[in-house]
């Protein structure tokens, strides 16, 4: 599974990436997870199965959802509490749900 995360500068989401990678490893899930800034999402979205958006840039969600529709991948916002506490396992679960839906 390829999970793309995005926020304003791709910095705080990169924090979450390491936690999610750890969670994936523990669960034995093979996943490629990476974070980028909102302005370059376009260049990365083709390689992703799902796009997760940081809550602080949720104003871009409509725009990014449209992009997801074009590319045929699910796009959604990360739960704020999971985001704030860097809960890798929960966000990974969320990503899986989105992909299998």
């Amino acid at each position, binding site marked *: 599974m390829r999970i793309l995360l995005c*926020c*304003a*500068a791709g*910095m*705080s989401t990169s*924090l979450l990436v390491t936690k999610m990678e750890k969670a994936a490893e523990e669960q034995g899930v093979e996943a490629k997870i990476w974070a980028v*800034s*909102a*302005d370059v999402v*376009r260049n990365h979205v083709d390689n992703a199965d799902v796009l997760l958006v*940081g*809550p*602080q*840039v*949720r*104003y*871009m969600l*409509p*725009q990014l959802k449209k992009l997801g529709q074009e590319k045929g991948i699910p796009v959604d916002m990360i739960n*704020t*509490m999971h*985001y*704030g*506490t*860097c809960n890798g396992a929960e966000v990974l679960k969320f990503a899986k749900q989105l992909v299998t839906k």
Partner: protein
Amino acid sequence: MSKFTDVLENKVMPMAGRIAGQRHLQALRDGLILTMPLIIVGSIFLILGFLPIPGYEEFMANTYGDQWLTKLLYPVGATFDIMALIAGFGIAYRLAEKYNVEPLSAGAISVSAFLLATPFEVSFLAEGATAAVMVGGAIPAALMGSKGLFVAMLIAMLSTEIYRYIIQKNIVFKLPDGVPPAVSKSFVALIPGAIVIFVVWILRILVENTDFGSLHNIVGEILGKPLGVLGGSLIGSLVAVFLVQLLWSCGLHGASIVGGVMGPIWLASTDANRLAFQEGAEALPNVFTQQFFDIFVYIGGSGATFALVVMMLLRARSQQMKQLGRLAFGPGLFNINEPITFGMPIVMNPLMIVPFILAPLAIVITTYIAMSTGLVAKPAGIAVPWTMPPIIGGYLATGGKISGALLQLFNFCVTFAIYYPFFRMWDRQKYAEEQGK
């Protein structure tokens, strides 16, 4: 209090969303980002040129000759001094992308249009002459930098709007069937390009017949000066910081949204300081530059939350706050505070929103007073990235002045005092919850 969060939820948030989602503002912000790596690289050379070590200048002059500084600053001329050129390209590129039209041509056309708006002449004072003369045949370096920034921004928007309109209306060259598709593709930008150039050309000729003389002068008078006053005043800066905090209180990236509007203004004032610093001026012109906010106000991230992180580590009684402190310390050192804003949380939490708004406003005022009275050196126009840890950041941003680092320390104490009572209340509440479980 719930009324307050209601207002945030139902009034502030949708409005902020609309503004932030506005494509021109987004293009502006994303396009300007293109200049940042270059400016940071230029800053490294700038710092090396003005290291505040006694005897440094003599040592450099003895080792590398009298011209050492000029030579060392070559890269500054090709980074800082062409920011308008790069920004114009970047903004046009990002805007075209948002319209789903070919961005590379849009960028190239915008650069060409920007240069067309710029008279190719520089003023030159010959040795022994009393009056400067205008010399043709030279691209004026000054207008390629921050002085040309607003013109570059406007031209990028104008030219890309024309470009995408023509392409979307499908007014393109139709070549005969036998022509390979790749060839006809290369002509797609031809008609929009021609129209953009024609429009800017007419504009320039019209303006040359007025007292302003050039588009750069008009934009400077009408846009640059009022915006400079707005961005350079204490009130303007307090309003900007207040808005950033208010947006973050709703959980939206305030700095990124407000930065779309204020970014170019602060970038221009940063560069004005850089020019003065480079020329060895005693007094730098601006207090409010990008670094004023990034380095001196947002210590630990928007809201100056580093003090809060330290409190969590040292004084928290609840497990939740202790753990959050440990999680947030590393990112906080680099001014990233999403764990705090979303994890504590501050977002939509009426109790914590109070200090979250007050603390940065307070240190805008202390920093302003410290810098405008000359107690602390002003930011020297060195583009220290916003992720620079405190103390080091203040030292570098002022061009290597200890006073910059001390001011950050002082501001840290101010924010500590403001956050502390609120933190205690929240922590106690969490502790009680935990004990009750």
